[in-house]
């Protein structure tokens, strides 16, 4: 799914990759791929992740990983970093999710009573990036669907998600709800339907697999 999600990034984009699974997408891009990666803690032009031995103590990404710069990188302050986000300069952001609704609502920052470390830059990324896609497992650890009719957890942003990449499928959020557009090798349509907590529009044509 991570390799498939990487194909969502096209040449020339400015992209923010959220903490967790999305960060791994960068490993599937060719080294010379023309893309500008942004991180909330005030850097455009993220280079490869470094080992502790190679690391610069003053150079991390928003997830705390030690990263490097590339030719053409820029540093700025936190206000400028989010001016980039809110003004629509991000072509794409890839985020994790606890729940995504059939209308594209995203909940990914708080499970009341269990997980509430804070929202960080998540609301601004979800609300303001020009395209928001989600990378997540199709179900949670207990097997409950994460793609559901309406979110039950506190929202990060409403109607923001366009596409969801999971371990089972690629699902688009359409005006009529979730639509299955691709399926993982070895997974049946019936399995995806059963693991999805809302109606799934199936295509008339054969499903591409990944």
């Amino acid at each position: 799914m991570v390799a498939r999600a990487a194909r969502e990034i096209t040449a020339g984009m400015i992209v923010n990759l959220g903490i967790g699974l999305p960060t791994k997408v960068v490993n599937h891009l060719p080294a010379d791929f023309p893309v500008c990666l942004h991180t909330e803690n005030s850097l455009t032009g993220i280079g490869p992740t470094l080992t502790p031995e190679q690391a610069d103590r003053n150079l991390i990404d928003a997830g705390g990983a030690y990263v490097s710069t590339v030719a053409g990188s820029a540093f700025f302050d936190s206000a400028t970093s989010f001016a980039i986000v809110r003004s629509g300069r991000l072509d794409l952001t890839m985020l994790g999710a606890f729940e995504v609704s059939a209308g594209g609502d995203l909940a990914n920052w708080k499970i009341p009573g269990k997980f509430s470390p804070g929202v960080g830059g998540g609301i601004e990324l979800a609300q303001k990036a020009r395209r928001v896609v989600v990378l997540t497992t199709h179900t949670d650890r207990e097997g409950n669907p994460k793609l559901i009719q309406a979110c039950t957890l506190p929202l990060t942003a409403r109607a923001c998600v366009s596409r969801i990449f999971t371990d089972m499928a690629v699902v688009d959020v359409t005006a009529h709800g979730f639509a299955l557009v691709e399926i993982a090798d070895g997974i049946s349509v019936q399995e995806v339907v059963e693991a999805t907590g809302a109606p799934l529009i199936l295509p008339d044509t054969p499903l591409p697999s990944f």
Partner: protein
Amino acid sequence: MKLPDKSCVMLDARAKIKDGNTVMIGGFGVPGTPMALIHALVAHGARNLTLVKNDANEPGMGVDHLLRSGQVARLITTHLGLKSHAIGLMNAGAIEVEFNPQGILAERIRAGGAGLGGILSDVGIGTELGDGKAVVDVAGKSYLVEAALRADVALIHADRADTFGNLAYVATARNFNPLMAMAADCVIAEVEQILPLGGLAPNDILTAGVFVDHVTELGALSEEYAVVRR
């Protein structure tokens, strides 16, 4: 003419902090966090503090020391960190935590430093972080009123300074520091090197010394500033 000398030792600088103060602390993770000034504040002992800090640092580092010493009543932040001691304190009701979207926290501080009353933003409308905030309409769009933030004291980390308090930062250690350095009644900067006047080229200065009250040079950096091995 000669610009005034604001260099001092850390013991003098911390005397400005009082019980009940609001204290802004720069940094995002380790980079830019004024570890030595935080230790000075722990030793000083001021209590019932409101901290404004992007994150709560990892256990045993940065603001975690102030949380453990019980000096913090309230924390205005964006993300506590997944392993932070602050989560337990918040859940136990020992500290009050106010979450802000990260860029909104930055802009509230910027507004406070720029002499403004606040900013208008649609970030978080329709979520619980937008609840309870005043809404105004401008040109047919709805915006939340986000009040400006100022502090009694700001604790800043910069790479280099001159004796007037002009500051230069490196890499991702810049983050909130230049914004907070404008938004407090008393701004204390710890720096890795103090240069004589003229030692910083005017074009390299990101915080003008007029915003800074005290600048103190760090000696050898403690382990807290080093690369974290996870």
